[in-house]
């Protein structure tokens, strides 16, 4: 049987080892619409993690802020910056203590949903990732919140 292969990219960013099923969500938060070529692999076999998703973006280097937001939904993802088909940098996704402007508060009575305010969430637990809204003080699992695009 012929093996289908996701093309290697010359220059850009590879986000690998995304937990299977989270790929589209990651693609959403880094906003892949535009002129760059993007390849998304869903449910690929992985020796390391069984099944995984992968995203390759040509000609674009992700900012640290974008990398950190990926960490929120796919903490196991590895991010590599490629130039001339070579890895020039492995970026580490870090979950900051304070997450600003990235998460929408699910509480409909929270002031961040009625005024134009940059949301602020404190990380209260890492495994599973839990955050507390600075304003309404409600605690949420990151799986329950919406990540702003």
């Amino acid at each position, binding site marked *: 049987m012929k093996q289908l292969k996701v093309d290697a990219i010359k220059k850009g960013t590879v986000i690998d080892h995304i937990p299977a099923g989270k790929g589209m969500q990651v693609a959403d938060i880094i906003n892949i619409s535009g002129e760059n070529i993007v390849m998304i692999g869903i449910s690929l076999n992985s020796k390391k993690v069984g099944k995984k998703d992968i995203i390759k973006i040509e000609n674009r280097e992700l900012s640290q802020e974008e990398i950190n937001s990926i960490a929120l939904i796919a903490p196991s993802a590895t991010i590599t910056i490629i130039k001339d088909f070579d890895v020039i940098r492995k970026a580490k996704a870090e979950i900051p203590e304070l997450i600003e402007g990235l998460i929408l508060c699910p509480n409909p*009575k929270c002031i961040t949903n009625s*005024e134009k305010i940059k949301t602020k969430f404190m990380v209260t637990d890492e495994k599973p990732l839990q955050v507390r809204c600075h*304003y*309404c003080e409600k605690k949420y699992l990151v799986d329950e919140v919406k990540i702003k695009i």
Partner: protein
Amino acid sequence: MKNLISMRDLSKKEILYFMEIAKKIEKGDLNPDMDKKLAALLFFEPSTRTHFSFATAMKKIGGQTITMRGTSSSSVKKGETFADTLQTIAQYAEIIIMRSPIEGAARYASEVVDVPVVNAGDGANQHPTQALLDLYSIIKTQGTLENLTIGVAGDLRFGRTVHSLVQALSEFNPRFKFISPSFLKMPTYILDDLNEKNIKFEELTEIYEKIDELDILYVTRIQKERFADLEDYEKVKGSYILERSMLKGVKENFKVMHPLPRVDEISTDVDNTEFAYYFPQAKNGVYMRQAIITILLGGVK
């Protein structure tokens, strides 16, 4: 300290400082003079009692108050942002005291204006002045906040007053008995916090169960509206009404507290027993609010 927004912000030392100043004011050892100071009372949600208590407190320390009620009397209706409303009011008053149905509103206000902000209740979130006056009532009747056995009865799921109180007491090694119908139980996130801090609690369904072990019984109202089926309400209602006959065998130092208004969860024949403390508790609220305003306005030298 500039603002009072959430019990979560207060250290044990700060909590005790509020107690100390309230006591000095009550005893007449401290006579704050807030002459020419104006408090803006912004009540975006009706609450006659809390408003009255704050207004009384401000007047007793020589200050004055202006009041804005509801959203209809403000410019909010005209499309002005909340931030603009607040910044305008901050030009007139030395302190803003705010009640709002929006959670986090007071926190946000404190970030927008330069004058001190007191949270007088923000939705289901926090009501720190109530928690502080409750603690003051406990310390006055028990002589300490440490190692007490506290029963909390009623709507434990939605009651922000009990959430703030339980949080605040957690600093003082309490034992809790939580008494409520099963669907109005204390939320898991609060129980998790207690477990983390190794605080002992048990959950009960009858108000008289273990009443003889309690130092304080804090009763709150169960709102009929919470029940999907009124028949269910009628069935459980009686389990959460404190009757005089249940008070046989309680500890000598036992006191019944209630944030008021009471509907029928404490039978009126409890009122003239030595255990009833809900009306003095309301009075303590004025001392505590005098203390809070004085501290935030820099009136304690």
